[in-house]
């Protein structure tokens, strides 16, 4: 029997980016807030100080900061006619764990979606005709526009201190920035990072081929910065231990660095760590949440009553809690009815590897998010007529590290071991480099999340089941983008170049990204969305899912974090300026 705790105004499930932003905004508004986080507290100077942060085995291979599958995992299959099996060891994607969530170990790549991405279906239908879209493609317009979200993007980037060069300031195209991006109300908070040789050579080649390269927007800061919460951040030192690692010198934006020191000063905010929410409780009508139940590390069960529940976990686990709590109608792929679990999408990435025999590249001098990029082939920035696919992605030279357990380029045909392997490895390490594309992943009728019928977690709850495979549209897109990237690569005069477009089937054992989207999507129609345009549940008005990637109706050709952060601010504004005045459905 759960022991009942004193009531709070707000309970937040998960203390990552969205949880800490919502916590800050609502505590600032005077509400009594508790955030419940299933992982441990994490801090820069003790969990990943510079003295042992650069430890590839511990953090990148043994995955010290990530969710342990024993704590929670999911099952996976490519097709609906297969039996899903548990992901026993995360490798294809890496959900975070603990205070800060994925915001601890992310790269720092900080991208806005394109204005046309927000009206994807209507834009494509208008430009190319409805008949051109595959029947089983379930993409839909976002219920918010880029223009509405722009101030929120701006706030999140200022929170992070993002480094970059604007390409479009209030409609005026800026030299050196991304000419395809949506308008910005202000320049990036800090100037772009410095670039290494490979990125510089890529930019030269891209310009030669007629493209407009620009520095990747990075929340790994080019210089020290004080954010609007008064928190001071340091300068990135290009250590090359960024993604999969916590930052040891306060230079990569994270909830720890950018929000928590200010948030924890509020006397009306409390964090409850190493405690896992097992369900959201509803009243007898099923229309109103009464709080949550959680279990602490000793196995003791607690009930936390609250007037409002904010679901801020990683995307899969948002979907799982909605399903386990009976909020919203579960998606049924046979009928296409129901919404929770619908429109799971991912990211379609690919690479082109090059060897520049006569150049010293120092690949270990890197950050998770520097590099030079072109955006000419993203979204609908290029004419898709006759190409046989929709979507696209950015591409460029943004190799993030030279950590040798996992990054050891060798020429084609090199054996995996022995004398020839050793020679090739020694001779190539300084000269090999990976270029990459970061492509969209549109949603389909047969790509979805539901509860697994067989496998259970440590509390006996069904695991999430993922059914996902790449569709022809994405594979064609990847082939096209990878070809374009290889053309630029060849203009760099490499001694060797090899293109690796994404091939099916989707393989859950090969790391691609941790951009798992959808399942609790936001939309304008309750028949095709779980949340309304304020990330509020259509069915239970005091439950919000404030901007985790699970709210994306499909995934676009960019990393999700900037949009996740922007939607967190968007939701916080809706709650403080609208919901609190008149609690009830906002739509």
């Amino acid at each position, binding site marked *: 029997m759960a022991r009942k705790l004193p009531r709070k105004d707000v309970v937040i499930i998960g203390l990552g980016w969205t949880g800490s932003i919502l916590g800050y905004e609502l505590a600032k508004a005077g509400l009594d807030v508790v955030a419940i986080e299933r992982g441990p507290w994490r*801090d820069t*100077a003790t969990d990943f*100080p*510079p003295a*042992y*942060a650069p*430890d*590839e*085995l*511990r953090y990148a*291979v043994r995955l010290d900061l990530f969710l342990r*599958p*024993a704590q929670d995992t999911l099952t996976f*299959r490519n097709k609906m006619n297969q039996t899903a*099996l*548990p992901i*026993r060891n995360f490798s294809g994607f890496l959900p975070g764990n603990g205070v800060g969530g994925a915001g601890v170990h992310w790269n720092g790549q900080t991208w806005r979606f394109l204005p046309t991405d927000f009206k994807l279906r209507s834009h494509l239908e208008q430009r190319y005709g409805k008949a051109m879209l595959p029947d089983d493609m379930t993409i839909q317009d976002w219920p918010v526009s880029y223009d509405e979200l722009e101030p929120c993007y701006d706030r999140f980037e200022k929170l992070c201190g993002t480094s970059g060069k604007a390409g479009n300031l209030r409609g005026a195209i800026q030299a050196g920035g991304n000419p395809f991006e949506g308008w910005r109300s202000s320049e990036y908070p800090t100037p772009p990072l*410095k670039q*290494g*040789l490979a990125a510089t050579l890529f930019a030269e080649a891209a310009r030669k081929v007629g493209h407009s390269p620009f520095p990747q927007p990075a929340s790994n800061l080019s210089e020290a910065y004080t954010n609007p919460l008064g928190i001071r951040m340091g*300068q990135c030192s*290009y*250590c*090359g*231990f960024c993604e999969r690692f916590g930052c*040891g*010198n306060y230079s990569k934006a994270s909830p720890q660095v950018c929000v*928590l*020191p200010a948030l924890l*000063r509020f*006397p009306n*905010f*409390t*964090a409850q*760590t*190493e*405690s896992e929410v097992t369900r959201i409780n509803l009243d007898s009508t099923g229309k109103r949440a009464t709080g949550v139940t959680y279990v*602490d*590390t*000793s196995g003791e069960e607690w009930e936390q009553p609250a007037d409002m529940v904010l679901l801020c976990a990683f995307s899969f686990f948002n979907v799982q809690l909605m399903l386990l709590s009976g909020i919203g109608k579960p998606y049924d792929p046979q009928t296409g009815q129901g919404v929770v679990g619908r429109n799971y999408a991912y990211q379609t990435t690919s690479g082109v590897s090059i060897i520049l025999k006569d150049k*010293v590249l*120092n690949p*270990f*001098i890197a950050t998770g998010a520097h590099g030079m990029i072109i955006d000419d082939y993203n979204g609908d920035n290029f004419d898709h007529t006759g190409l046989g696919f929709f979507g696209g992605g950015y591409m460029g030279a943004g190799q993030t590290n*030279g950590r*040798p*357990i996992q990054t*050891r380029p060798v020429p084609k045909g090199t054996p*995996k*071991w*022995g*004398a020839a392997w*050793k020679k090739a*490895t*020694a001779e190539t*390490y*300084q000269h090999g480099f990976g270029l990459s594309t970061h492509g969209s992943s549109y949603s389909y009728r047969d790509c979805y999340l539901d509860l697994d019928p067989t496998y259970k977690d440590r509390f006996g709850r069904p695991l999430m089941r993922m059914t996902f495979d790449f569709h022809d549209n994405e594979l064609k897109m990847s082939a096209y983008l990878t070809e374009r990237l290889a053309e630029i690569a060849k203009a760099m005069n490499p001694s060797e170049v090899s293109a690796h477009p994404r091939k099916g*089937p989707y393989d*859950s*054992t090969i790391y691609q990204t941790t951009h798992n989207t959808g399942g609790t999507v936001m939309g304008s129609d309750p028949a095709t969305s779980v949340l309304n345009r304020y990330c509020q549940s259509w069915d239970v008005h005091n439950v919000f899912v404030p901007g985790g990637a699970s709210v994306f109706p499909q995934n676009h050709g960019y990393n999700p974090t900037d949009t996740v952060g922007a939607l967190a601010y968007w939701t916080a504004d809706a709650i403080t300026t609208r919901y609190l005045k008149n609690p009830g459905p906002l739509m």
Partner: protein
Amino acid sequence: MSLLSPTRRTFLTACTAMLMATSTAGRARTISGGPPVSPDNTSPPEQVRLGPWQFFAADEASLVEAAVDRLIPPDERGPGGKEAGCAVFIDRQLAGPYGRAAGLYTRPPFMPGAETQGYQSPDSPAARYRAGLKAIAAYVKATYSGKTFAELAAADQDKVLSGLETNAIKLDGVKGPDFFTLLLNNTMEGFFADPIYGGNRDMAGWKLVGFPGARYDYRDWVERHNEPYPLPPVSIMGRADWTTKG
């Protein structure tokens, strides 16, 4: 020394002046008033010590040492896998949480699946080594007139290893390619991980490729294009230059 001095609280309370951390139960805790920070909470890795094998029996160790020295053979560029400590690394890893598959999802049922669904056996890495090494030893003994793997000529050792890799050799109860991949991956980990874990001795792996190791500041070199980084590798526990000479 002063009687007047202690008009302030102790250091500990200085750290936690803003902190009210109380425990509900177990390790779960309630945090408010400020981050629960103290430099005492640090969790550095432990230096692996040389000494007796912790996981391997003597015959297993000699097989692994011989194998890692063929996967990464010694040559004029530097030491091989054995001298670099790859077998010691694997031994210590198997004796620890990695060997036990700690933290992985190990609930039944175990069913074979597609490649894309990942590893689906109940066996931990430690169990896989026990079985794999035993099966290889038996194969070698039967095929090479009673010899052990370590006693084989280098060419024969290579033949066995590539036979495993390509599935040309059938082992009793063990999938050759699966075990080979495990052994190869762990060997590479040992060769390139920080020396604190027992492998990469004298930073041999890092020196081979020119990786400067556990460094955290390249601000002075990011724009020095096409110039090799000038400093030698450093491990978590330092480098020779940290010790005063003379």
